[in-house]
């Protein structure tokens, strides 16, 4: 049972969700070509030494695509894992703790990955 105004605004009882749904789809679409490119690129440098790997990451296009891959991946996985936590964890405190852990860890790992790529690309890696 929804009022005409509720139907028009498109809000359910949760008052949110469209943003989550849309961000999940947007990152999913971005990740299709990015993941295929990444797997193909890794296959091309299987067994390569550090210098070759650094040279590959250091080029503009791979560096840009790697940063985009990291952003889209960690955004997508934090959205997904939060839903998993909300579905299976029913104790409020544990749920809150896990949601905070997912959010902070995915943000932290994303920053670590992006920093690594940039430090190689901008020439400060040893």
């Amino acid at each position, binding site marked *: 049972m929804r009022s005409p105004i509720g139907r028009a605004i498109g809000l359910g009882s949760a008052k949110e969700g469209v943003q989550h749904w849309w961000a999940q*789809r947007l990152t*999913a*679409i971005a*990740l*299709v070509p990015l*993941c*295929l490119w990444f*797997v193909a690129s*890794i*296959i*091309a440098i*299987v*067994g390569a030494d*550090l210098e070759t*790997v*650094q040279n590959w*990451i250091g080029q503009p296009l791979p560096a840009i695509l*790697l940063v985009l891959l*990291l952003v889209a*991946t*960690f955004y997508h*996985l934090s959205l*997904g*894992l939060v839903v*998993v936590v909300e579905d299976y964890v029913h104790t409020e405190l544990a749920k809150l703790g896990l949601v905070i852990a997912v959010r902070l860890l995915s943000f932290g*790992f994303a920053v*670590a*990955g992006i*920093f*690594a*790529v940039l*430090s*190689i690309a901008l020439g400060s*890696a*040893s």
Partner: protein
Amino acid sequence: MRSADRPLSPHLQIYRWQLTSVMSILHRATGIALSAGTILLVWWLVAAASGPEAFEGAQDFLGSWIGLLLLFGWTVSLFYHLCNGVRHLVWDTGHALDLESTYLGGWVVAGATAALTLVAWIAGIARWVS
């Protein structure tokens, strides 16, 4: 009867699985596995930025049998989640939602996952030995 002793429904011992529900569960399972796998990716990138010693450590782990097993599981999970994700995106447009299409799409995803994994590993091993 305490609530923990109550019989479960569906009765899992005699429950007949369907392709559609198994694929739905696998989508979530591979999503969680891939999330864990990103730790490996970030470790490898940070190692490459840190220098020869750290990089060698990461490469040695990835080249060990447990590392290769993880990489294989990661490849299967990635291709499955990717293909089934595209199936989900098609559903989001309102298409292919009837029973016949969901089963057909399911088998296409299973076949594509196997084919992409096989191609990736054959190409990777060919690259490795050359």
